[in-house]
């Protein structure tokens, strides 16, 4: 009798320890991860579209999210995926700067420190597993700061920050544009204050103010003006 009890307890303990491996929730974690990344990509794509259009469509993020909401059920059929979103529509403090969003988008340009940003909060339900109210926020952000312009050496020093206020690396001359001038070279170097500073060499004689544009690898654009 004692032997049966010991073995039964052993079996129960084994089941308890390996329970997580047998349950289907892992599958749903991957589903959540996939939807979360897709939603972030959509926010980035909408901001890229908004910042590159000649006449920006301020409803682009909302329209894309409406379509995404419907298309999610086609992409993941049978899961009972219901996604709702709330677009940022007020002043938010983003990495130490106050940004006013309208329909989830912000474009603060033509300043020495300029921004493009998008922000949306999502609420996800997966009815097939009884998941309700899983919340996550997707933020896309790009900040271009013109630090100084040295006309004597035809050089503009800028720094570029992305999501999380983290300096953006790997940009080259193709990612920058000095309005009215061609760029001969763009190099990056370490800086104690900004971590990464890009030195843009332009061709020609420049008179201030100067306008600089940047595109990151996601296609998001920011236009800054100095001074």
């Amino acid at each position, binding site marked *: *009798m004692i*032997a*049966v009890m010991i*073995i*039964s307890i*052993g*079996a129960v303990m*084994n*089941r308890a320890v*390996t329970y997580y*491996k*047998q349950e289907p929730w*892992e*599958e749903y974690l*991957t589903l959540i*991860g*996939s*939807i979360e*990344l*897709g939603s972030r*990509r*959509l926010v*980035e*794509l*909408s901001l*890229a*579209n908004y910042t*590159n259009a000649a006449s920006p469509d301020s409803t682009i993020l909302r329209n*894309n999210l409406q*379509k*995404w909401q419907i*298309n*999610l059920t*086609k*992409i*993941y059929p049978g899961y009972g995926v219901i996604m709702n979103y709330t677009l940022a529509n007020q002043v938010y403090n983003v990495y130490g700067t106050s940004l006013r969003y309208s329909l989830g988008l912000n474009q603060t340009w033509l300043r020495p420190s300029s921004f493009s940003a998008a922000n949306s909060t999502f609420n996800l339900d997966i009815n097939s597993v009884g998941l309700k109210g899983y919340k996550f926020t997707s933020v896309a952000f790009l900040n271009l700061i013109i630090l100084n312009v040295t006309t004597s050496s035809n050089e503009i020093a800028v720094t570029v920050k992305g999501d999380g206020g983290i300096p953006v690396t790997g940009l080259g001359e*193709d990612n920058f544009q000095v309005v009215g001038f061609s760029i001969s070279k763009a190099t990056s170097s370490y800086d104690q204050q900004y971590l990464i500073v890009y030195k843009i060499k332009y061709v020609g004689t420049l008179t201030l103010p100067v306008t600089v544009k940047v*595109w990151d*690898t*996601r*296609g998001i654009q920011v236009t800054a003006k100095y001074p």
Partner: protein
Amino acid sequence: MKMKNRNKKAQIRVLETILASFVMMVALSFVNIFATNPTSPKYEATELQKVGYNVLHDLDEQGLLARFVYNGEWNNLRAALRVTLPTDVYFNTTVYDLSNRKLDDATVFLGNSQIFTNSKNVVSVTYGLVGSTKVGAAYQAVYDPRIVILWLTRG
């Protein structure tokens, strides 16, 4: 008389031992029915799904999956999957648009159809992509979802 009693006791002990062993064996067999060992199909399917999803997620995080799918770089997608998946895992990938139109050229696979039909554990991973962004002179950011289905099995 004393000797007889002792013999009886010993016989009972032997019987008890045999009975206990029998009970233990029955209990062990009973437990084994419910036990899910690490090599069982139940674990294998979950593991393969995890591997498949992680590979697609990593490729997407690096911006490679969208590039391969939207630019039709099927050979690159095949090479990326071949490099990132374990060597004993065979795969077959299909890409659809939202109208269920097949978009790939049926070359994104490793192994043959027999491996998938004969294997006990074939799993599928569904992954959604939202759209593509082309940077540079031909700038384009388009919302155009794609559904990537990755079938996996071990050889």
